[in-house]
């Protein structure tokens, strides 16, 4: 298999324009004849569906939730980056590109990232025109805030609910197209499998989650916008229904999976409080603009945080990284939090937390100013923890948040399966080994509004797509295999619940494939995952049947896939013998404990081909070499 990224030739700043000029178009009356399936209705899915429908395609959209408006993009808090340079602080498309590629620790493609920075400005225009109420200055113009990993203020925001407002904008744009009749919406439908005919993606199998019935849908192209796989860890900031099944089923049908070990651990989440915990809640990174991160200098500190004087507080980010201070990128902040907790300086009942303190900001700016900026986040914190962050420091700890890895795509966002496109967090495309804050919303909307509408059209115009119908044997086979998995899960009737298995898997992943990883730990994780997977298939207890609404059957189907994906993540983490971005291997660190990258041997995308699962996961690694023509690879420094 040869993985061709299909990057257009020419100067970096002209690649996308040139490509758009070169790609093939379909006439409006021909577009109408072509059907495109969009799976998922987050920022990428909703924006892609709306834009393709506006162009005239017939679009079918699938959401696992009862309304497309609930997709997990809705929970993004802090903001969205764009290179508008409204603050006159020297920002530019180049700088946004450079910060993103550097933030990703040089493990992403230059051309993709440059395009992302290039279209970022159009996203803001589009959102404002849709009525997205971004934060504004007194003069009525758009305001910006600063975010980790950048020295300019380029982040647009709607208080702490930027994801909600952007998603509602995209959702409304899509509902406008539902009204036009070109988008057909299927809510509470989960994609169970991808259907290939003559090697091309030609449809999907879904389950109606209410009626329990299994359905076949055919199309000329399928766009997967199903988000990330952070829920492999059980505890994460992802929503409870976010899952990897659609992506993993595509992988099992031949789509290669790229950089599975690149998982972002977000530094500012509310710490775990007990075994019953079902999810973790993120506190926006924007809090680090005004909050100062610290731990007590002394291990045996017993005083209330407010009584600890300045000289006994260890502002470890400010001390270690004086130029970026509390605004270092997420990977650096998370790793530092783990380091101080490993040294025994952690706070709270578990010792697995650090302080995020607003005392000085309130003194400087007043409580009112801080409340206006972060009020809803402070309320959320108080609601969950019962502590008042205006009066005492927040306690925070890193948590699994975002997966940079995902299905491999070329410059057109098409996987190695012709006709299968992957957008948003579900692809591996733009963030390398670490994503900067406020860049997920940018990527989801860039992919959906401004990239796939062009590249899907080019594909449909280019290839021969004979009519298929759902009577084709490929549909029957895929439907049958999905039903068999459900039957098998229901037939086990074992003694452990799905949640118990998932929690155990999550613990293995957090302990050994989490913030820091070692050869020894990863090898043992792989063994443990295999053993637990075997036990799952012999001892899981899935209640009820497949004939009606059954949440625990949905979970079981997803957890079965996590068991395979988890092994791939560990295999990839073991193979990548370097530290880069969020991937910290204990064996590869500088003397100061910073990530030690190895560009000579590892400047590539790891892309795995699925060969089978037989007690162990059989995979084949393909390497897409990353060429850096325009930026110089440097040791990242935020000091």
């Amino acid at each position, binding site marked *: 298999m040869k993985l061709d990224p299909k990057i257009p030739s020419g100067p970096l700043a002209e690649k996308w324009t040139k490509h758009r000029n070169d790609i093939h178009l379909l006439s409006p009356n021909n577009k109408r004849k072509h059907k495109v399936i969009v799976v998922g209705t987050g920022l990428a899915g909703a924006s892609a569906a709306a834009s393709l429908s506006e162009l005239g395609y017939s679009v079918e959209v699938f959401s696992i939730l009862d309304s497309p408006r609930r997709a997990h993009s809705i929970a993004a808090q802090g903001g969205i980056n764009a290179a508008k340079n409204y603050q006159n602080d020297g920002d530019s498309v180049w700088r946004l590109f450079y910060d993103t590629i550097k933030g990703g620790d040089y493990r992403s493609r230059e051309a993709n990232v440059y395009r992302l920075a290039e279209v970022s400005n159009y996203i803001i225009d*589009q959102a404002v025109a849709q009525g997205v109420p971004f934060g504004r200055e007194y003069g009525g113009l758009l305001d910006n805030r600063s975010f980790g990993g950048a020295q300019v203020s380029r982040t647009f925001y709607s208080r702490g609910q930027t994801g909600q407002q952007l998603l509602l904008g995209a959702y409304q744009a899509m509902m406008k197209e539902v009204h036009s009749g070109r988008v057909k919406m299927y809510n509470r439908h989960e994609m169970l499998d991808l259907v290939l005919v003559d090697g091309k993606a030609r449809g999907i199998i879904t389950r109606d989650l209410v009626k329990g019935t299994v359905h076949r849908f055919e199309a000329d192209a399928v766009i997967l916008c199903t988000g990330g796989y952070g829920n492999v860890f059980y505890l994460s900031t992802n929503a*409870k229904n976010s899952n990897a099944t659609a992506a993993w089923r595509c992988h099992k049908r031949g789509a290669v999976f790229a950089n599975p070990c690149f998982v972002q651990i977000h530094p500012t989440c509310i710490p775990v409080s007990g075994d019953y915990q079902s999810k973790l809640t993120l506190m926006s990174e924007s809090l680090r603009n005004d909050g100062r991160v610290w731990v007590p200098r002394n291990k045996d500190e017993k005083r209330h945080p407010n009584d600890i004087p300045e000289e006994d507080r260890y502002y470890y980010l400010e001390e270690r990284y004086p130029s970026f201070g509390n605004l270092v990128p997420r990977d650096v902040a998370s790793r530092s939090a783990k380091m101080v907790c490993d040294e025994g300086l952690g706070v709270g009942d578990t010792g697995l937390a650090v302080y995020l303190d607003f005392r000085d900001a309130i003194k400087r700016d007043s409580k009112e100013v801080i409340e206006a900026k972060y009020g809803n986040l402070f309320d959320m914190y108080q609601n969950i923890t019962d502590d008042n962050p205006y009066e005492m420091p927040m306690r925070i700890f890193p948590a699994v948040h975002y997966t940079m890895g995902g299905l491999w795509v070329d410059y057109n966002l098409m996987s190695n399966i012709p006709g299968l496109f992957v957008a948003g967090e579900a692809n591996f495309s733009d963030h390398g080994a670490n994503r900067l804050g406020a860049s997920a919303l940018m990527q989801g909307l860039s992919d959906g509004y401004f990239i796939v509408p062009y590249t899907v059209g080019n594909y449909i115009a280019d290839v021969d797509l004979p009519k298929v119908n759902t009577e084709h044997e490929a549909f029957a086979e895929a439907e049958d295999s999905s039903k068999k998995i459900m039957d098998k899960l229901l037939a086990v009737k074992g003694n452990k*619940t799905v949640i118990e298995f998932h929690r155990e898997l999550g613990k293995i992943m957090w302990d050994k494939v989490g913030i820091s990883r070692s050869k020894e730990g990863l090898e043992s994780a792989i063994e443990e995952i295999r053993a637990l997977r075997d036990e799952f298939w012999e001892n899981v207890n899935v209640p009820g049947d497949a004939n009606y609404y059954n949440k625990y059957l949905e979970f079981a189907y997803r957890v079965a896939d996590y068991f395979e994906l988890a092994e791939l993540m560990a295999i990839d983490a073991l193979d990548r013998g370097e530290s880069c971005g969020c991937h910290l291997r204990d064996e590869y660190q500088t003397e100061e404990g910073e990530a030690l990258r190895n560009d000579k041997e590892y400047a590539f995308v790891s892309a795995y081909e699925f060969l089978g699962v037989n007690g162990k996961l059989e995979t084949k690694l393909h390497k897409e070499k990353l060429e850096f023509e325009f930026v110089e690879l440097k040791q990242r420094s935020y000091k």
Partner: protein
Amino acid sequence: MSLMTINLKVWRQKNTETPGKFEDYKLDGVSEHMSFLEMLDVLNENLIKEGKDPVEFDYDCREGICGSCNMVINGRAHGPKHKTAACQLHMRTYNDGDTIVIEPPRAAAFPIIKDLVVDRSAFDRIIEAGGYISVKTGAAPEANLIPVPQDTSNEAFDYATCIGCGGCVAACPNSSAALFTGAKIAHLNSLPQGQPERDKRTVAMVDQMAKEGFGDCSNYAECEAVCPVGISISSIAAMRRDYIKAIF
């Protein structure tokens, strides 16, 4: 950490057609730090182990923003805490030995699917009728071309924060969706970008609301009282004002 015993009365209903009833459960070892939905997770783990059917309820983000959860707790949508979605409610709100009654939001326009899960697709159809600004991808002018006064933008934002949970409908004696519909109309109609379609939007959405079988608003304001994000009933006034203007 104190552990509590909680008595639950939960609405169990097999499907839309079959009548439902309350079932009693006793749950031990409930931690005050658990969220309300985590408490129900524990109940379900117990039920599965006993070979019984777990309670179905909608949830997703569990951080109060997706609007999936919308159960009625002791007669109040989302439970007793002001401006708090059911998923953000914590068991520290309750005392050892308390009895909690949990039922789905009841409205003709929200048919019950199973247990606490209801069909809220009527909300999507109200948005579909006109809850948007028609701007095609790529056609937008430069974002700072039209300044929007900060107060206007903030007001639009407050209305735009509706999470579409349907708690307002559950609380309303008329099962009206006026707060949901009004919030979207007030959001879009207050912005300069929303003006060209103002009348058309207002009429289409209000008419769709009636068509879905939601009742009319009689100014009880129960909706505002239970709204987990605090949407103001001034949105309903704005909707009425714009509707009258639009039809005459």
